[in-house]
């Protein structure tokens, strides 16, 4: 009997401690937009994964490049084959931290401004990215929304002259993730 109680207690502790720290999503929504006079391009992936540690503020994102869906099939093919070279660099990864963790109360329902700094690895190149996003805590679920610009040149992605006017030099990346406790 004692042993049962003990092990039950242990399991409870395990569950509670894990429950309270790590949050995960397998269906984060990442999108990016390129606006030029000639053409607007947007792509969406709803298969990005992300994990958040509310204790340390650590935040990671990972997305398979081939999961981005474009309006035009040819754009998608060019994106994968020529620009981000998905076969060589199959995924993009962001490793970062919430820097103003003290201002975000994950235990209490509410909306908080959060500043995130970290390294974005895309097309084999890693660069620092800082952005401010919004974190919403509601009934045990955590949602995060953020946007930041990415200068294509920074990541050694070269755009052929023929389509230079169709693709903007800076694309706006948007992140929308709803986490569940692990």
């Amino acid at each position, binding site marked *: 009997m004692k042993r049962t109680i003990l092990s039950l207690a242990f399991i409870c502790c395990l569950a509670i401690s894990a429950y309270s720290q790590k949050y995960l999503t397998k269906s984060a929504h990442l999108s990016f937009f390129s606006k030029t006079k000639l053409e607007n391009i947007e792509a969406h992936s709803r298969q990005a994964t992300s994990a958040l540690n509310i204790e*340390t503020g650590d935040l990671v994102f990972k997305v398979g490049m081939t999961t981005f869906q474009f309006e035009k099939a040819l754009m998608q093919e060019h994106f994968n084959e*020529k620009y981000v070279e998905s076969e060589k660099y199959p995924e993009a990864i962001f490793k970062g931290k919430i820097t103003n963790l003290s201002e975000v109360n994950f235990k209490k329902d509410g909306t908080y401004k959060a500043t995130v700094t970290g390294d974005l690895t895309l097309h084999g190149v890693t660069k620092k990215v800082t952005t401010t996003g919004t974190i919403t805590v509601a009934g045990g679920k955590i949602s995060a929304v953020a946007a930041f610009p990415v200068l294509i040149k920074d990541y050694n992605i070269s755009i052929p002259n023929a389509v230079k006017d169709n693709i903007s030099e800076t694309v706006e990346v948007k992140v929308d993730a709803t986490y569940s406790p692990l």
Partner: protein
Amino acid sequence: MNLFKLALLTFALSWAASVPVMAQEDDLLDLLNAQTDSAKANTIEYTYATFKTTRIISGQSIEIPAPGVMQFLIGHRFGTFKDGWRGLFGLDRANIRFAFEYGFTPWLAVGFGRSSADKMYDGSIKLKLLRQSTGKRKIPLTIGLYASGAIHSMEWTNPDRNNYFTSRMSYAFSLMIARKFNKGFSLQLTPTVAHQNLVPDKTFNNTVFAMGAGARQMVSKSLSINAEVFYLIPGQLPETYQSTYSIGIDLETGGHVFQFMITNARGMVEQYFVPRETQRWRDGDIQIGFNINRVFTVANYEKMQQRKAARKEKKS
């Protein structure tokens, strides 16, 4: 055990258990890696861009226009180099074909074309029976079937005799077996049968078989070198009829794929370039030519699928 002890133990255990979860970024990343690995194993990732467009050079490639995409194709095969400087090495004259192809699903497309050679109208259907993929379903090859029927609109060569409409008809069937070996190199075997309802005389077979093969090697992100052969199995036609050999490049810009080639094939449909070619490379009887492929997205397949799913959900 009293309650106090239990509480203490619980606290100690909870602390102990929380230590390994005091995660660093890399732990979180490991977590994601485990997620994506299992996701990868559960999704099928289809190979894309085995070839750049729906033709390798003159013959069909395994590619079809993406669902909801209309492809307009215009092809020229100029006169032979033997026309010399007076005929600007063949550029003074050309065979022309234009065609529209439309993709209905990721595995079905139809086409319609018109060639100046034989004033021929052709309609075709192209199916992918198997698609090269990794992940949940590992398939090493893409296999497709191409079927085409054509009607020529030339005046009868012997108007005096009883001519049947069916004599204008011809057919072609290709089986396409392709593999993208890596980012830059793809290979395809294309056994092809062409059937003409009417042939000049008994020395011609109505049904002619050719073994086709084609390859693509990318040399830069926008440029690839292609080669194609349709080997005519001997004994089916008089000896003047030839296999065709072509070499060319694919040059890709935004929405266009330009294909330039040197070839001894004058026709741009199987019904023509399999049983009707008489020019030989070794005689210098070759010509330059081009295909221009332009795609137009006319329907958003993704949205169509979503709407379809929504309708299904409503019903049930």
